């Protein structure tokens, strides 16, 4: 097959050259490769400048062209920078074409329901190539985006299969969700953990009002993912693999036996007198060592791409495995993709892009079991040689975390089909009708089993305590989710003289339905083969639930793009969105943008310094309807039990208060940007200023009790937020002989402020045990600001205590070695009224920079990511479950003792220690995100083996982090937006070492 194709190609080329060889032509041969990954590029057009002679590269990137010895060859390929090369009488000319986005102004940017040349875009659109993403050994494209695009903050986690949080230009919502909309080949979704990084050709991020083309879902920005397609040419087979391990990147050292006992002498002396056994048995337990492991991580990907003039195809299969760091944790993902496009007729194209994903995960319960590791007493062994567990709860401590992990067996299996079928019809050249049926469907199966065990000597080395599970239990849940989106668009594109016009009209219909069924039973036997509900006790503790959601959207879009002479750009769009989530169905989301390509003006056209300069501005309205369906519909609560004459009576209540006028959040955004390219585009970059205001933000408002609402809150449009900021990016790339290098970076500044609560209450979040809610979202402050007491020192003596204000702090009293707080309101009493705003997790600055070097067959790249100006609340330290909790080793060393007059660390951290600035630490960090060294085997060597390319590489993800924070990691995946930055049970950050292989036939 491959041979036949090659023959046809060569034949075609020969014919071509036969026609063209009038002059004294020489035959020029060569190979065209991708500048980044050195892969051959098939289908590149090689053209003689000013002539009609042209050729294309074959499957191996080779071309042959007959041309005058003094001619100039032009190499062009969609998505790559066009290159001109003087022949200078050479007969072999090898070319590297570059994809670097900043460099390639001709590059096509996907802007939603269409694409544009980068230079014609009036909005702020970030772009990352698939090659950038796939070189990192991470699961999700979202994680791989970290540090690559200005204005895009990625908060990741080392936990397998966790979904990184993305904030495009700050946090714009509390209830409606702050993550952007993802669009995968036209499928709108909120979760892209099913996408294999190796299948992605590029990611475009709509950061400004240009996202308004997605209307009521565009408020948080849009991330558009385009997957690979085949090209006209012989089949190209690629195999990409890497394997390595993950390890803990930063361990928090807990107090050892002696430090712990020393601390308890002050914190909880009674525990030391009550039971001597653990105190007399030697040995200290490092619980993190007992519970963590080194995890295997690997990925294998195989793809085939190719096609002919009528049909192109891309098939791929991938395996991804990540065992994580916590014992019993495990994750496997299998991905399959088939992207096919065929021309039924010259003007009619049919295609399909389908992906199938199956993932299987054994998760670990972070909030219960794992968070106990921090507090587990080092005087108790984790497990002994006989397999008996240390009895932590008998010691008055929390449950043994290792036992907790081993006595649960949870499993989640997810099957997902995502993709589309589309038909494109071009009755005339300038007109395109497109209809696409997109679908996203998944089936989840969750199964959680808890083993039965007693607090006796068959489980523990000493019997007793509170850690036991009297009944084994099984929880099973099946979820189904099904969405279809039917897109219909008409595009008219015409160029006349210097005018270029593109018109788009469209109609989109969306239907989404989900439901779940779950059940719980006790007394299910231990063998995995019996883990079905039927084997459990049907009489006691059995539960079944079933529920679902349904929503629909109907949308109309229209867009006009106009440019004059490539100098003056204008665009406008409107989307009318109807959503079933609100009583008032339709909203209208317009945007306008304009650009001026100054470098195309006559006075700059011939500049040696400035190769590209563009000013642009945009304005638009966007929406956010990301809340539950039916929040405005009053519902009844049935099946409320009561007994009459010992028989069950089921009553009903109508009690939840709903806002009948609920509507979507409205975001208004301005953007002003400057794009530049200097010194023949060796230095490129962008500067943007934006101002984004969210109004009618969905908020939970507290209701007076007389309305009878059970939780006393309802969802309504009450708050307003603002994010404004500046983004800057720059990249220098050049090649000196065989040495190519690039240095790039981006930095973003963002200021987030709550600008109105519409008479509502400040929103409270970030609950930590006895300390209560520690974040407050209030006027004039960033979302989820810490609202705590100000620590001013430690009481060193009785005189200081006598001089200090009275304490009214829920049982926390003034003691020597205890906390001294500021009397902020000056009322002579230290109370909850003295709390003040003390920073938030939202960074002032964030960004990344990267360096790429290549020399001959060697390539090296590295990138860094960091943020500055944010704060973390060390909730692990602040949350005390009981008086026997362990503490950090550094705290024991630094804490106040009569011999060590600390003015920062109190003598003890007790359960009733109020929330204060003591627990607030800097969140600034700079992390070496990825470091890769690759070597490509010499082509001559491979040619004999009929292999196009072999590259081997070694890579490390997250090699080191420079940080001030004393916890595991400053990158904290929030459980909710209102508890951002509160570190309670985050998964430890992982460092990955891996070796990899890229092979191409």
């Amino acid at each position, binding site marked *: 097959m491959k041979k036949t194709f090659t023959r046809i190609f060569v034949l075609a080329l020969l014919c071509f050259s036969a026609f063209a060889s009038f002059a004294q032509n020489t035959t020029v041969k060569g190979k065209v490769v991708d500048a980044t990954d050195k892969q051959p590029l098939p289908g590149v057009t090689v053209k003689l400048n000013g002539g009609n002679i042209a050729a294309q590269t074959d499957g191996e990137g080779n071309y042959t062209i007959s041309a005058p010895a003094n001619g100039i060859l032009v190499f062009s390929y969609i998505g790559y920078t066009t290159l001109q090369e003087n022949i200078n009488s050479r007969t072999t000319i090898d070319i590297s074409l570059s994809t670097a986005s900043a460099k390639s102004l001709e590059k096509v940017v996907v802007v939603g329901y269409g694409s544009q040349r980068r230079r014609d875009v009036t909005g702020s659109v970030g772009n990352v190539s698939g090659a950038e993403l796939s070189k990192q050994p991470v699961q999700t494209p979202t994680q791989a985006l970290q540090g690559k695009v200005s204005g895009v903050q990625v908060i990741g986690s080392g936990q397998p299969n966790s979904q990184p949080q993305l904030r495009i230009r700050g946090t714009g919502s509390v209830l409606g969700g702050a993550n952007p909309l993802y669009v995968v080949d036209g499928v709108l979704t909120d979760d892209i953990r099913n996408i294999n990084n190796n299948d992605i050709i590029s990611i475009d991020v709509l950061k400004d009002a240009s996202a308004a083309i997605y209307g009521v879902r565009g408020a948080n920005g849009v991330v558009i993912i385009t997957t690979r397609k085949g090209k006209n040419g012989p089949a190209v087979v690629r195999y990409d693999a890497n394997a390595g391990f993950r390890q803990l990147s930063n361990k928090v050292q807990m107090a050892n036996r002696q430090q712990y006992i020393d601390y308890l002498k002050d914190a909880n002396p009674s*525990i030391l007198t*009550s039971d001597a056994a653990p105190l007399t048995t030697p040995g200290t337990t490092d619980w993190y060592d007992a519970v963590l492991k080194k995890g295997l991580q690997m990925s294998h990907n195989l793809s085939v791409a190719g096609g002919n003039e009528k049909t192109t195809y891309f098939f791929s299969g991938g395996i991804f495995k990540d065992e994580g760091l916590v014992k019993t944790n495990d994750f496997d993902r299998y991905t399959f993709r088939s992207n096919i496009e065929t021309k*039924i*007729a010259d*003007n*009619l194209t049919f295609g399909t892009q389908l992906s199938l994903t199956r993932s299987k995960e054994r998760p670990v319960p972070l909030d219960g079991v794992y968070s106990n590791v921090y507090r587990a007493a080092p005087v108790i062994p984790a497990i002994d040689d006989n397999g008996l567990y240390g009895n932590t709860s008998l010691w*008055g401590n929390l449950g043994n975390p290792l036992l907790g992990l081993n006595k649960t067996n949870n499993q989640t299996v997810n099957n997902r089909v995502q993709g589309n079928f589309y*038909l494109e*019809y071009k*009755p005339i050249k300038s007109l395109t*009708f497109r*209809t696409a049926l997109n679908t996203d469907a998944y089936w989840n199966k969750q199964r959680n089993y808890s083993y039965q065990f007693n607090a006796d000597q068959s489980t523990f080395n000493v019997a007793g305590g*509170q850690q036991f599970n009297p009944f084994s239990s099984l929880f099973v849940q099946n979820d189904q989710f099904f969405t279809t989106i039917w897109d219909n668009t008409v595009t008219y594109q015409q160029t006349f003289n210097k005018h270029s016009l593109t018109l788009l009209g469209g*109609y989109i219909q969306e239907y989404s339905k989900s*439901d779940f069924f779950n059940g719980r039973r006790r007394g299910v036997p231990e063998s995995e083969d019996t883990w079905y509900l039927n084997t459990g006790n049907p009489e*006691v*503790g*059995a*539960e079944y639930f*079933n529920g679902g*959601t*349904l929503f*629909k959207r*109907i949308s*109309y879009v229209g867009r006009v793009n106009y440019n004059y002479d490539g100098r003056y750009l204008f665009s406008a769009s409107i989307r009318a969105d*109807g959503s*079933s989530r609100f009583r008032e*169905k339709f909203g209208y989301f317009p945007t306008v943008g304009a650009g001026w390509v100054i470098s195309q003006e006559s006075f700059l056209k011939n500049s040696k310094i400035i190769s590209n300069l563009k000013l642009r501005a945009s304005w638009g309205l966007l929406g956010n309807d990301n809340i539950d*369906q*039916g929040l405005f*519909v009053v*519902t*009844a*609560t*049935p099946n*409320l*039990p*009561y*007994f*009459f*004459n010992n028989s*069950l*009576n*089921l*009553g*009903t*209540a*109508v*009690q939840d208060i*709903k806002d009948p006028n609920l509507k979507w959040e409205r975001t208004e955004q301005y953007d002003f940007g400057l794009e530049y390219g200097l010194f023949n585009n060796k230095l490129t970059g962008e500067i943007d200023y934006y101002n984004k205001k969210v109004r009618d933000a969905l908020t939970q408002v*507290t*209701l*007076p*009790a*007389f*309305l*009878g609402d*059970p939780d006393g809150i*309802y969802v309504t449009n009450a708050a307003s937020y603002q994010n404004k900021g500046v983004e800057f990016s720059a990249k220098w790339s050049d090649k000196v002989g065989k040495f190519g290098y690039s240095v790039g970076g981006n930095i973003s500044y963002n200021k987030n402020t709550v600008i109105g609560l519409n008479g509502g209450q400040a929103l409270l979040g970030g609950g930590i045990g006895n300390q209560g809610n520690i974040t407050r979202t209030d006027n004039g402050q960033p979302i989820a600001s810490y609202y705590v007491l100000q620590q001013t020192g430690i009481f060193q003596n009785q005189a200081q205590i006598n001089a200090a204000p009275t304490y009214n702090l829920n049982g926390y009293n003034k003691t020597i070695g205890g906390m001294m707080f500021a009397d902020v309101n000056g009322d002579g009493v230290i109370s909850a009224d003295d709390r003040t705003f003390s920073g938030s997790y939202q960074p002032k600055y964030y960004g990344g920079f990267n360096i790429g070097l290549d020399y001959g067959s060697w390539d090296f790249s590295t990138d860094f990511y960091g943020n500055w100006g944010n704060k973390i609340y060390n909730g692990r330290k602040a949350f005390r479950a009981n008086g026997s909790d362990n503490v950090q080793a550094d705290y024991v060393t630094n804490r106040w003792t009569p011999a060590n007059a600390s003015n920062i660390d109190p003598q003890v951290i007790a*359960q009733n220690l109020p929330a204060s600035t003591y627990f607030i630490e800097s969140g600034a960090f700079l992390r070496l995100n990825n470091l890769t060294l690759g070597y490509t085997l010499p082509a001559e060597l491979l040619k004999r083996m009929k292999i196009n390319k072999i590259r081997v590489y070694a890579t490390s993800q997250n090699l080191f982090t420079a940080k001030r924070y004393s916890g595991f990691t400053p990158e904290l995946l929030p459980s909710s937006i209102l508890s951002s930055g509160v570190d309670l049970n985050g998964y430890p950050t992982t460092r990955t070492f891996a070796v990899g292989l890229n092979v191409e036939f």
Partner: protein
Amino acid sequence: MKTIYKNTAIATLTAILLGTGYSCKDSLNVNPQGEITEAQFITDPNVAANLVGGIYNIFFAGDAFGNDVRGFQYTILGDIASDDADKGSAPSDYGDANAIDILQANGNNPVVNNIWKGYYQAIARTNQALAQLQNAQFDAATKNKLLGEARFLRGMFYFNLVRIFGGVPLLNRVPAASEANAPEFSTRATSQAIYQFIIDDLNFAATNLPVITNTSADVGRASKGAAQALLAKVYLYNKDYQNALAMSQLVISSGTYSLLPDFTTLFRQANNNSRESIFEIQAGQNLACNSSIDRFTVAQGPRAGGKNGWVDRGYGFNNPSLSLVNEYEAGDVRKNATIITVNPSNGANSVGTILFDGFRIPTKDSVENSRYNYKAYYSRTAEPNCGNNDRLPKHVMIIRYAEVLLIHAEAALQSGQAGLATADINALRTRAKVTPIAGIPTLQQIWHERRVEMAMEQDRFFDLVRQDAVQPGRAAAAFAADGKTWNATRALFPIPQQQIDLSGGNLKQNPGY
């Protein structure tokens, strides 16, 4: 061939146009899935009966540490705040309950807000039911019975609110969400107006509700006797002794109720809905195991698991006070049926404390507290449950025949028919195995009898405040005997500050807070 493509394309385009053409408005009207909308619900012929059933469920709707009507939060006010009990548990546990115990709570105390929210949720459910009952297509008798049940419950809810807070906002209909800021609902009515409202509700209930005996199929529902008994109590609180006497006499004369001969088993599961019971909360075992008051028993259960705070049978709140212990006469069987006493260690001969079901509490040296509430105890082994210890199906007594006798005795004494009181008091004393009094009891003797009979049933605080209105100085002395300082501003609990804030200041705080 080409024409086929063209036709296909044209057909596709037509489909697109048709797609855009169909009515969008209707297709976007989507109901929440798996939920019954109000619009669907009100077409159900049983809507009113279901809503009345839903009111009773309010007792189980809350949370031991959240919204509450007649569970642990109410216990903090009725028992812990009084001279009968102390907060208990570990000293550092639950500072908010401690603030109530030592009478130093203010409007920011969550307990009062939990109670306020619980009761207004209960009243909202009642008003919803009453609104639907007006439209219900029942025969008059059925309708009046359901109306009577709802109004009995509403009367009871307001009676507790007025005892806790004094005058409160009076709602007799369902406000709309848009009325959240209406001063009408956030301004306090006078306590007289509330009492008149309660009396109207209970009178309606007493007139329209049927007699329900403890063998009837309607056991557990509000009955004529329940309405009369509660009404008698309301009259007593209003010092309307004539009506209190008349109402309690009606209950006594009905012959529907009598004292259970053995006081010591009165609060066990076996004696649920005994002949002494007039109205009690009907917990039970259902598959979902949610038909009982959340942690009512566990919160008050003996914290008996040994050192280091092992909780075992419960959290150990609401400990009977020494003042209560001292109130019992020697030989009164009610003492050991009301109070679990944790015995001190006796070396090798220690037996601890053995409860009726055989459960052994260790000796004092390894138990957090000295005394626990036996009336709130529910055996996990000898009494049935559905497997969730937080939801033990404990019935909670609201009003029983013994209390009617006490009301009758006090009302008789105060209305100049003191002779009637002797039989009432001696019926209780005889059962308690203490010497009957000779002749006519004094007010002090009736109040003593009331205290020991009704101890740890969440009534003492309100009763003591009531007694103080009859005999000023009484409450301060009783609290002083329990080591607490009481003054007249502590007759009522503080209005929750959150509700004051939400009312825009229309809701006014009680004096002294």
